[in-house]
């Protein structure tokens, strides 16, 4: 078997980094910046926004697919 030598597309690298940052933020923000704040809806709203951002990033990636090559 031969080694894979082609570099991943730049779009894929950017998208993976963006998704990784988003997921890390999905843990770090509630447990960091929002931890210990006065009782309120900040954490729930943040996670709702996080879910929408996940949908947007995934949609961005799959909408570029060409169905009929």
């Amino acid at each position, binding site marked *: 078997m031969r080694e894979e030598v082609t570099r991943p597309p730049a779009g894929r690298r950017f998208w993976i980094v963006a998704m990784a940052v988003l997921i890390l933020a999905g*843990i770090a923000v509630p*447990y960091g910046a929002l931890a210990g704040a006065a009782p*309120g809806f900040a954490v729930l709203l943040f996670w709702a926004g*996080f879910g929408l951002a996940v949908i947007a990033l995934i949609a961005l990636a*799959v909408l570029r697919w060409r169905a009929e*090559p």
Partner: protein
Amino acid sequence: MIAPLLVWAAIGLFTALGFAIALRAARANTGTAGDYYIAGRDVGGMVAGLSYAATTYSAFMLVVLTGLTYRGGAGALGFELIYFAGLSLLVIFAPRFWLVARRWGFISPAEMIGARYGCRMVARLMAVVSLVFLLPYCTTQMAGIGLLLSGVTDGGISLFGAVATGAALAMFWAVLAGLRSVAWTDAVLSVVMLVSGVLAVGFAVSALGGWSTFAQGLATDHGAWLGVPGSGLWSLPTFVALAVPWFFFALSNPQVSQRLFVLRDFRAMRRMILWVLGFGFVFTLIAVAWGFAALQLVPGLENSSMATPALLTSGVVPVWVALLLILGILSAAVSTLDSIALAVGAMIARDFIRREGVSNDGLQILAGRIVIVGVILFASYFALQKAQIVDQLAALSAAGLLVTVPPIIGAFFWSRGTAAGALAGILGGAAVAVWMAILQGVSVFNPLLPFTVGGVSTALFVGVSLITRPRAGALDFAAEIAEDLSRHRAW
């Protein structure tokens, strides 16, 4: 409580509808293994998406996740959304799974990975590991059905009656026409799940005086539940321990990854992913809102898993909505159960019964049907026995199935991966998972468990691959599908 007769009547109507769909699906089958296990690779995006959603969102959502919200608060939403973010893996892996399955005719994910490494033993080991960790997970679905039906009828429907009902439905829908009947019934069941959930939350919030009163009540009486660690349950280590293995669910669980083989074309794949995203996000919000409503309407429960039955029988939700939600939860459990049974059946049929160059589709289907019946009977029996070992393995399922992830990623992105490496990673990782969780008693709430299991299986896969050579018959997925990926503009 709800009268058992009413519950039975609702289940009867639901069963009749499901049977009609399954029978219609059976007429479309042509009798080949590919048709039985993956519906002839001709499922459209909406049905595939709803089926994927119904399979992945099990009774866990409105029983366990609702209970975790009740017990611990907002962390339940974050945990489930980290799992939801794991659907991003589909962007990279769905096109690859689909392309290689089309090119080489793969029907089970284990078969695909075995062929990639040129070793049927890899496929068989992956099938066995999936069986070991998924069977107990099936048992928890059965237990969920039992908890719900006996809970809302105050024992009027016995655990045996509830489990037997779930078993009969799952068995019939999976055995009759395989994936086609499972996918079609799943699609209808997913609509029941979503509609019933929306209605139930709507009535519960209305009983509290509307959304503003609902929110105000939460902030005033349960302020701690709105943040993390909430009431104390959602410490960072617990959150990470639960979220990490679930993040890889889309790859590690064959009942969902096999759905990537059934799609008609790339357009269907895109639509499937968008449907799953939409369904998953809304259903997650429903489960969490339902848990917060239960916290206010039926406070003080000792067992948080009883939050849903308690709220359904509290009188704040009309009986017809309660019945619909019961059907929704029953749907979630049955759709997960029959999909797992079918996926395990496919793995046994393809990786143990299929013979190269011999056409034995009838035998493969028969073997799969026997396995489906066996899996469901196993799950039913142990749900009734309430065996501790099964509970432990079920809790371990997400972390245990992590061991299949390194060879799956390696199959597409690391041509140096070898069969020996894959075998070592899967076997070693699974042994460590069982040793830690069962013998050493390390809790699934301890992040040491998933990180050790994932770390050991990855290290063994990489290390053993580096000191061994790829087999002569191994396939080079990356090179073979590079052009197709490029033509479809997939990453």
